[in-house]
């Protein structure tokens, strides 16, 4: 299995020793502390890549986007996350924004049993959604309507999967019968919730009886979530997506044709409906030098240096 090393490198296979001192690891930085929501990293002199230029990094986790924006404007942060839906706003405000290739796939996970046990019904949901509205309005033209799980830049054959809306087809697949009551839950806030609301509207227009799931209302039939594309290996990414979605999927080779067949087969189950490919983006401070983004969209901090403050 050619993609095994890539799979093993995933976060889910991370080996951590409970209670271990934060001096482990062979990367450029080591964890030196985590106090009051601030994760402190210090340079690892014995990194296999060599000692990084930065002596230390502080990462404020779970900080609201607007707060990050204020921190950045006040010079208290050199690097902040920019959600895809606000990239356009950041660019309009002339912030230096670094945008990755599409590394997240906004996907609907459909329950294979219960109210959506009928595959035609699940297929009709895929046709009912207006991906263009999601990409152009909610994600402010930063998303790419997707009919495939793997982005075009990863697989090269994403254009073969249609992402067009077809309301008539959706009505046809729904069968004209009264739709069962469905609940849709979005795993995330902000734009993801807005996207979920839009999807609900689209589905209602197609005759589906869908409501936004209230918190704690049980297991929803439809779940909106963003799947990460963590490597440049299409086969490994597809396998990781299936695994993240909880789908048992037979092994396949990394041959592009095999990956295409595997993806086609996975999508034909109609339990995963790709909607948009989304990038990661960061606003980078003016004193930050040589920041590049990795293939998974994460910033490579090992080569970063800072200009002295004026």
């Amino acid at each position: 299995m050619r993609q095994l090393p890539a799979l093993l490198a995933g976060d889910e296979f991370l080996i951590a020793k409970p209670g271990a001192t934060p001096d482990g690891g062979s990367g450029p930085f080591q964890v030196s502390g985590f106090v009051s929501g601030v994760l402190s990293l210090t340079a690892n002199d014995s990194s296999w890549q060599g000692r990084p230029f930065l002596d230390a990094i502080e990462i404020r986790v779970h900080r609201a986007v607007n707060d990050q924006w204020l921190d950045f404007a006040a010079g208290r942060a050199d690097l902040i996350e920019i959600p895809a839906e606000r990239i356009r706003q950041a660019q309009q405000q002339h912030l230096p924004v670094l945008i990755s290739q599409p590394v997240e796939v906004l996907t609907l996970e459909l329950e294979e049993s219960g109210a959506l046990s009928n595959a035609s019904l699940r297929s009709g949901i895929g046709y009912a959604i207006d991906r263009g509205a999601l990409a152009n309005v909610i994600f402010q033209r930063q998303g790419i309507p997707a009919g495939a799980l793997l982005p075009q830049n990863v697989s090269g054959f994403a254009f073969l999967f249609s992402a067009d809306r077809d309301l008539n087809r959706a009505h046809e697949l729904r069968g004209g019968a009264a739709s069962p009551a469905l609940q849709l839950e979005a795993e995330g806030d902000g734009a993801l919730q807005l996207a979920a609301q839009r999807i609900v509207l689209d589905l209602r227009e197609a005759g589906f009886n869908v409501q936004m799931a209230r918190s704690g209302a049980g297991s929803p039939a439809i779940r909106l979530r963003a799947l990460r594309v963590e490597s440049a290996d299409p086969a490994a990414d597809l396998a990781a997506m299936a695994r993240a979605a909880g789908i048992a999927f037979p092994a396949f080779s990394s041959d592009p044709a095999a990956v295409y067949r595997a993806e086609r087969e996975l999508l034909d189950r109609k339990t995963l409906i790709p909607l948009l490919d989304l990038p990661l983006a960061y606003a980078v401070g003016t004193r930050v030098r040589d920041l590049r983004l990795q293939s998974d969209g994460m910033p490579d901090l090992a080569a970063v240096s800072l200009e002295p403050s004026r």
Partner: protein
Amino acid sequence: MSLRQKLLLLFSLTIAATVAAVTWTVLLRIRHVFEVRDQEETALFVSQFQREFQSRSAEVAASVGRIAQSDRARAITGELAQTGDPAPYVNEAQTMAQEAHLDFLEIVAPGGEIVSSAQWPARFGYAEPAASAPQGGSFLKREELPDGSQALGLFAMDSVRGSDRPLRILGGEKLDQAFLAGLPVAPGMTVGLYADTQPEPAQKSSAEFDARQFVAGGGPVANADAYKPLILSTLAAGQQSTSILYLTAKREESLNVTAIPLKNEAGQPLAVLTVAISRSGMVAAQQQIRATAYGVASGGMLFAIVFSLWIAARVSRPIEEMARASEAVAGGNWDVTVEERGRDELTVLARSFNHMTAELAAQRERLVQTERVAAWRELARRLAHELKNPLFPLQLTVENLARSRQLAEAEFNEVFEESTRTLGMEIANLKKIIGRFSDFSKMPRPQLERADAADLVERVRALYATACGENVALRTEVADEPMPLDVDPELLHRALSNLVLNAMDAMPDGGMVTISARPAGKAIELRVADTGQGLTPEECERLFTPYYTTKQHGTGLGLAIVQSIVADHDGTIGVESDAGSGATFIISLPMAGA
């Protein structure tokens, strides 16, 4: 029932009925006045509330107008006209709504599709049904929300000026608990809103009432089910209506509720606004007035009774005195007089009564005098008659004796002896007559003692059983039960003996004398009956008159003495007789201890 009681009852009933009628009328009038005042107050409150509601509607329209005229709205209109890309403004409505403190705000493209929606941001691109609503004024609209529920809102629409194809701003304020809480309400007033904002199931009927959808400023309306008929009828009729709702059986726990239908542009009722004003204050005032009225009425009635007593006593006292005096007169006391007060009719009556009793007394005195004279005349006549009989033989004997002086001695002696014998007999006869009159005049007072009537009868029977002779039979009929009498046994024996002797005299040819004794109520009747010739009615009337007799040699004092004895024992005596079938004398004496 006495006259005083009747007067008292009449006065009391009259005054009580009058007081009750006045009290009832006053209470009815007060209640009517309170009801009218309550309705006017409710109408005033409702009017004030409607003005406030209109004011809030105007505020919404003004807010929407200000947004439409804002530089930002104009900029969006211009940019959209140039780029045709609504994406940058998807969150614009939320920002504008927050700044304008509106619950609903949508930016609507000239084509009617939503550019940005504050209440449902994901609705961009969809058509807004209210895009054709008139601009400027406010209207009601039921708005769908992302969670599937609906909310009722007070909306207004305005266009962004400065463009040939202007955007429209559709904003509104949610009609909910918070909206109601922000409205000024008078003390005791509760403003509620019933708006069915839940998604309608297919089988849901419009006549169903969901109490959870009925809220006031402070939360769910208490006793919401009590409003159900009023709300449903208002929704059905689409007309404002007012009703009194009784939350419990107590009148003070009632509300004067005005239900105002809230309609959309098409005139369809979307919700019902209820303005409920507690009637507790009014009812409490009514109850206080009623309690006061009842107190005054009770006091009035009490005073009426006392006054009636006084009036009845004042009116009836002379009449009662007159009645007592009349009873006294009827009882034989003619010397009674009544007091003469004032100059009214009763005084005239009293004066007349006194005059009448005086006249009666005078007449009685004259009658007594007359009777006394008549009695003396009768006595003189009887005495003359009785004395004349023995005197005539005496005169003849004395004259014969005087003439006999001329006769020889032997013949004189014979005449002398014959004359002295005759003189002696006639003088004895005179003594006897004088003795009877003496006895009548010396009737003793009875010495009462307890005796049984049966013993009295037996004593008479034992005395006369053998004296009756062969042709007269004597028998007695005595009841078995005790017949106690408080009498003088000697006098009563004398009376009975007199009657028995009279009976025997009445039957010269023989017959039967029956002496009987029996109880008769609270008296004892003693009867002496004979089987003689009986008495005529005239004889019966005069029988007890002194010196009246039917016998050739009677004095007429026997039955008078019997009547005197009976009267001295508080009894009565009478006679019953049918011609040819004998006579029965009936003595009635009060039973001892009765």
